[in-house]
């Protein structure tokens, strides 16, 4: 096991504890790597360099193998995401059913382009390849839940609603 520099370890104590909990839950076999990374991504919204190093140490595999896996899959990523992640399906059946108008409305409402996160950290906007909702297009995943037959106006309402939720919480 590689020992991290003491100051790095101290600065990431919470992260390391979370990884140790996940290893205890899923095991230290190579097959546990992806479930651990999925859970880490879910909990902490990013998979940092330190996280990849620690996971590699615990599983006894080279860190580059962990990085290789993280960068291979669409739902694993090193960059941090916002609180709410929107994946808009850009594949054929959705594209034929008005995906372009949904994309334009999302960019307009959020003020960002695809692949970006809003400065307040509330929203990340991403593309998805076919999400298997071709019978009810256009479709998107909001925090990995499928929303079907979305209209541009629904998108506006959705964004407004999620923003209000947050300001409501601050107000309370």
């Amino acid at each position, binding site marked *: 096991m590689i020992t991290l520099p003491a100051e790095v370890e101290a600065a990431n104590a919470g992260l390391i504890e979370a990884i140790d909990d996940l290893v205890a839950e899923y095991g230290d*076999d*190579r*097959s*546990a*790597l*992806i*479930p651990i*990374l*999925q859970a880490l991504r879910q909990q902490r919204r990013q998979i940092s360099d330190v996280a990849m190093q620690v996971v590699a140490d615990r599983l006894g595999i080279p860190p580059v*193998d962990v990085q*290789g*896996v993280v960068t*291979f*899959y*669409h*739902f*694993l990523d090193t960059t941090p995401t916002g609180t709410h992640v929107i994946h808009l399906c*850009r*594949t*054929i*059946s959705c*594209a*034929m059913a008005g995906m372009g108008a949904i994309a334009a409305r999302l960019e307009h409402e959020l003020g960002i382009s695809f692949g970006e996160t809003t400065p307040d950290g509330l929203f990340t906007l991403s593309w*998805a*390849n*076919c*999400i*298997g*909702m*071709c*019978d*009810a*297009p256009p479709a998107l*995943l909001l925090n*990995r*839940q*499928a929303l079907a037959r979305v209209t541009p106006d629904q998108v506006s309402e959705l964004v407004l609603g999620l923003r209000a939720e947050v300001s409501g919480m601050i107000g309370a």
Partner: protein
Amino acid sequence: MTLATIEAEQGLRAALALDPAGVVATIRESGMKGRGGAGFPTGLKWQLAAEAVAPDGVRYVVCNADEGEPGTFKDRVLLAELPDLVFEGMTIGGYAIGSHEGICYLRGEYVYLLADLEACLERRRAAGLLGPDVAGSGFAFDITIHLGSGAYVCGEETALIESLEGRRGEPRNRPPFPVVSGFRGAPTVVNNVETFAWAAAILARGADWFAHIGTDRSTGPKLLSVSGDVQRPGVYEFPLGVSIAEVIEAAGGHDAKAAIVGGAAGTCVPARDFGRAISYEDVSTGGAVIVVGPWRDLLEVAENLQWFFANESCGQCTPCRVGNVKLLEGIRALRRGELTVQQLEDMVSLGQTMRIASKCGLGQAAPNVLLSIIENYRSEVLGHIPVGAR
């Protein structure tokens, strides 16, 4: 839908009343070929896995629920509506090949189905349909669900196994085939969601029932995912051998110009060929039929699907990694009116090379839709090329 009328656990009880070889024989007699698209005979696959040498007696049954083919959603509907039948089919498969461990590889995009699927497995354990003594037969079998993380290529069975083992989903060289050396080097059967559901139905209703539906070489009913320019997109069941025209008619597609049959990896069938049959011997498909209305620009369809492949290529082999990007650039240049006839011919040649030289089905199928559009709509395609460049 026939599958919704199959009595619960009838197939499992019928299977457990036979010996494992009898179950394999039943599936072989049904003539069923894999419902995921590749069309390998299911009974033969089970037989090969049952006969393969398993040094420590371990074999695996894997359900490929990584339904990523554009235009395909019938597995999502099956998993949502009839999960018991799918898990029953996996259990039957386990009994047939002598496996005690099933794994369902659920695509990351379907994570919202996970809780219900786990609850279904829990119910089956409580009912004694999974666990150390399945339905009082003494046969032990259980199923776990592994969640994917978003990668189309993981629908390819060896990439799926790599992913299960915690690696990048890069397809393996074959042979060895998974039935000989699959998950953790053990004999492994990988079947599509729909294949397992029909396996349970075949045991319940008999091989003859299934074999008498469809054509001689494509037996049984098939679920089709119909989408695109139709009034009633959805999952339809037809006997294999059904004409493309009938399928489009059922979903309410009028004056369709073309149908992309088989999804992004399929082929573009022009309206004049709608009399052709959906079957393994004619137009083969895992179930996707994307209907294209008369007003559509087919090159827009081609560009969308080529972008998909350029984005989803695992990058392992050059024909696929580079070829898809080059084809995408070519389609874009064509649509801008900046391509010459010679360059179009070069694209066709590149596509043919990708078919031959790519390592797995992804790269081999990636040029299909484009090549079929160029072949079937030559004058429309050439119309995008400036007169001076012809």
